[in-house]
């Protein structure tokens, strides 16, 4: 039961984080379309790091 609540909290946190990353990247691309490639790469790396953290937490909580 508690690990389900924990999983929900992790997903909420990861969702907020991914939303921030994606939203800011969009803003950045809209401001500077010529930097799209660099922004996308950085976005994917940070999203991957966040995802690693979230999956790690889910994995430990299982």
């Amino acid at each position, binding site marked *: 039961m508690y690990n389900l609540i924990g999983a929900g909290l992790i997903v909420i946190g990861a969702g907020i984080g991914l939303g921030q990353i994606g939203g800011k990247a969009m803003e950045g691309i809209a401001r500077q379309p010529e930097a799209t490639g660099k922004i996308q790469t950085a976005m*994917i790396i940070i999203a*991957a790091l966040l995802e690693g953290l979230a*999956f790690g937490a889910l994995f430990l909580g299982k």
Partner: protein
Amino acid sequence: MKVAKQTFKFFVLLSMLFTSAFVMADTTINDGKSDGGQVDTKKEVEDYILHHIQDSHDFSLFSYTSDEGERKHVGFPLPVILWSSNGLATFMSSEFHHNDDGSVIVEKNGSKFVKIHSKIYELDAGATTVAYDADHHATNAHKVWDFSITKSVFGILVIGLLMLFWFSGLARQYKKKQIPTGFARVLEPLVLYVRDEIARPNIGDKHYRRFTGYLLTVFFFIWILNLLGLTPFGFNVTGQLAVTACLAIFTLVIYTASGTKDYWMHMLWMPDAPWWIRPVLAIIELAGAFIIKPFSLLVRLFANISAGHIVVMSLIAIMFTLKESLGVVGATGLSLVLSFFITLIEVLVAFLQAYIFTMLSALFIGMAVAEHEHH
């Protein structure tokens, strides 16, 4: 055209290998779980998904119950190689007759082996049947060293040979001409993509050549195995912790071994920092380099692929679990639509995970070989 012909021959051989499976349909001993009576669908679906996520000792495509009430399995057995207390024991996995609860005992070289939940155990001396404790753990059997060609190992071998064949073909073509022909033309832009978009910007112009080979291997290995996991053969190689852990350890060894003096200096005794903060930073940096980086690499790949497989299979299972409430056509239609779109997403995830693993490996290697400017 010669290469195209060779590729064609290779695929004919490969498809023959897979279709030969249909000839080798064999039956299980009926273990009392007949399909006639009441079946707890939810539990059965759960068991099936968990069984799929695990590695298995035989290559099983599907199974069904014949009119005579026999359970038929379509697939082929794989060799089991064990190092037990009485030395080496080898036999085909068909000797277990698809039994998974330890009631079929195989005797080889004076040791008795049983298979419980896809793991092989050796019975202790004198024991004739498996005894379980309250948690359903075997009490009179112990684990053995298992070097079997399991389903995942089989997948790795097939993909390894396939990659060797494809990429040595691509390399051979450059000796004769500048532009490759046939299937190699598909591979060339991918190779260039990994080199120019992943290796070069993250490692730097000076050192990237040394590591491009590793990055290319890891990229194609993960990507092709991820895609293979989406086929009905039901491989789940990159969703095995052992496989992803090995890949992460390769990356760890490579960036640790190629670390420059600067890298170790910055890790162990950070320059330009107050002396009392240096040990704290060293602890954080060491934990980051040896635990957090490889752990995040291995868990990310494992969790993404396993989660993807579980989601796809759960959506397929909708067709059984919602049969009562939606009717046969409704449940099948819903499951078909949902699993189709999630499979499309999984195709994207298959590429993305290979990209991210390679990208982060390149980034970590780049950090290790970077030359810092001194102020």
